[in-house]
């Protein structure tokens, strides 16, 4: 087994829905989709976003797009215009999820982390 970051096998985009944010996590291929389906559970996501997500995390599956959609409840400090956060709309939550570390089989193809 090897330890990798989600960003090595997936893409993500996030946005807001009231006081919740959503993060779409998109696997780069079917093998990676099976991995994220198994490894990226709602409780892992909640733990990863400790201090940011105050509520529950919901998860939906979109196998047609190799995608999981997470709803991070109570994650925007009130949301919209009420929020006092710099990122009041969860624009950065997608990138944050991609920093999650998971364990995957050694033979799973993964992208190298690009250094700039």
């Amino acid at each position, binding site marked *: 087994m090897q330890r990798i970051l989600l*960003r090595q096998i997936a*893409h*993500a*985009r*996030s*946005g*807001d*829905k*009231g006081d919740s944010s*959503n993060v*779409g996590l*998109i696997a780069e291929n079917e093998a990676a989709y099976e991995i994220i389906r198994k490894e990226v559970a709602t409780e892992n996501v909640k733990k*990863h*976003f*400790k*201090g*940011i997500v105050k509520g529950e995390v919901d998860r*939906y*599956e*979109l*196998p*047609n*797009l190799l*995608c999981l*959609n997470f*709803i991070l409840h109570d994650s925007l*400090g*009130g949301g*919209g*215009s*009420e929020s*006092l*956060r*710099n*990122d009041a709309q969860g624009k*950065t939550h*997608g*990138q*944050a999820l*991609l*920093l*999650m570390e998971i364990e995957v089989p050694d033979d799973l193809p993964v992208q190298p982390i*690009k250094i*700039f």
Partner: protein
Amino acid sequence: MQEPILIGNGQGFWGDSIDAPKKLIEGGPIHYVTLDYLAEVTMSIMQRQKLHDPQRGYATDFVQLMKDTLPSILDKNIKVIANAGGVNPKACREAIFTVARELGLTGLKIGIVEGDDIVEQLPAMMTKGVELNHMETGEPLTSLKDNVLSANVYISSLPIAEALAQGAQVIITGRATDPGLVLAPMIYEFGWKKDEWDKLAAGTIAGHILECGAQATGGNFTRWWEVPDFANIGYPIVEAKSDGTFVVTKHPGTGGMVTKDTVIEQIVYEMGDPENYISPDVKVDFTTIQLEEDGENRVKVFGVKGSPATDSYKVSISYRDGFKASGTLTISGPDAYAKAQKCGEIIWQRLQDAGCTFEDTNTEYLGLSSSHGEINPIPQQVNEVVLRVSARDSNQKNLLRFGKEIAPLVTNGPPGITGFAGGRPKPQEIVAYWPALIDKNLVKTSVTVEEV
């Protein structure tokens, strides 16, 4: 009817690139240009403008855009659909007509769609027992008392299609849905019926992919280093067919890119339950969407399934909800983070000692943890950090006091603090958003087309 029809979106939100619509109009073949100018907060700003001056309350950027592009639009017979009307579509149309007369143009037909603005009907509706409870919390609208600023229904695409059928070349709406601006021309061109759910769902997905402008063509894309020529990024275009399939693309020679990955990222943007995406026109199942690449910068979308629309429209109500203010200080190293934490403590302590309390406060360290918390460990030494302190309260005076407590830290706190040149932060009024549902039968939209 010609196939495919080419629809591009040149404005993803109020404040998006002012050059993008012009480039869509002039940079290659296009039949329709849609423009989204409205956010929840925008409606309340416009409502206040209209209260001060009955000739205001619409997106003035749109008038300037028309001034710059009307000759091309008429020359190429491009149709423009914009929710630029805000809370005053009539005044917006008059402004465009004035521009057309100044340019010596004739034969321009402008349609407006009205009926979405129900703010004046609210008291009567409440008396009749219409409930506009908050969609998530269930609270009654009466709890907002006199603080409501605007109330707008997200109307369906049918009245926009009707305006096209009446020959309008430019259509100005109020609170139409963003995807609806794109669906409407498909309904009109292809004669789609209001119960052809799969086709309406496909058109809605096309609109959803387009609605945030360049977010479908490489903007905000995860593998950003692969995106060519961001500076000249092309805005998205769909080539729509009558069977509901479409290709997402962009003008040749523009920057950015259209791949399965860039399109999927936009599909999942602001998504809730993927099997139940509800628009005024149709309910869409996102788990049915199929994509395939169809050459360079071309992605074909097909297979989209929809089901009957619900009996309700969503209403966007805005209301006054107190005040907030934020201030920042830049704190240099050594010990930047420790000093920033100390500054935060001092500010809140001084305010407390001055008898000033708040309904909510927030302390953030930009450069360290404001976006991602402690997902990555915070380094012991950083070169600098920006302290951002914020407060919210219903009493504006408390926030004025708060604004005075930041700059003093430069001389009476820890060393090496700068970045206070912007002056004292000013309280801004919070305009909050109240989503509700309303029976479709209670909302009457109207379409009028006039020619200059």
